[in-house]
């Protein structure tokens, strides 16, 4: 059982790392442009609402946020262990807990759009 869990968490970690490597740089760039007062067309409310009304986009958005959160939780867990923190149970509970909560909230808000 423990081995299955390990492989399961690792596969989410690897999928999250790959997906975020492909799409996060460009997404951060788009948000950064908006932060500087030059939002691209897609950042308009109506455009964004229309985009997120599409079911394929909803699924992609949920998958992206969820996998990124699991990736970060798992990688930070091992990094904190590497930095000498030995409270692995608490770190795992908080990290995976935030990832799970974030995933549920993302699904909840996407369903409202």
């Amino acid at each position, binding site marked *: 059982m423990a081995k299955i869990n390990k492989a399961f968490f690792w596969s989410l970690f690897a999928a999250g790392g790959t997906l975020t490597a492909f799409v*996060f*740089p*460009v997404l951060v760039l788009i948000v950064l442009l908006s932060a500087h007062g030059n939002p691209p067309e897609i950042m308009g409310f109506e455009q964004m*609402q229309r985009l997120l009304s599409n079911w394929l986009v909803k699924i992609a958005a949920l998958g992206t946020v969820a996998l990124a959160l699991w990736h970060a939780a798992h990688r930070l867990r091992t990094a904190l262990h590497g930095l000498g923190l030995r409270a692995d149970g608490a770190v795992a509970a908080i990290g995976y807990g935030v990832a799970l909560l974030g995933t549920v909230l993302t699904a909840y808000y996407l369903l409202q759009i």
Partner: protein
Amino acid sequence: MAYVRPVSKTSWYLARRSYTVHMLQELTSIFVGMFALILLWGISAVAGGPDTYQAFLDSLRSPVMVVILWVSTVVMFYHAVAWFSVTPKAMPIQRGEEFVPAGIIAGAHYAAWFVVSLLVLLLAGVF
């Protein structure tokens, strides 16, 4: 009893440059997680309606957010380059007796990354 070389549990990654680089790469995940939460914030703002969404866009323009987003941009590009650079080791492809050269596997990822980024920028209306 076998000899065990003493290794610090809290500062081993400072002993060698490659260990330090590894630890920095692991810590890029802080920004990956943080940006995922910013996306969640944006999605919740769209669900909240035009006013809530406008408040979200205004919040992005605060000095603190601008700094966070600039650092995130740099860190995210670093994460991507670091991640794709190890793909030949993480998923070696064997053809017959030979392994596909590392440069081709990593290069294919970089090329795909470039195309995906360009497509997203085009669809977002940046150009």
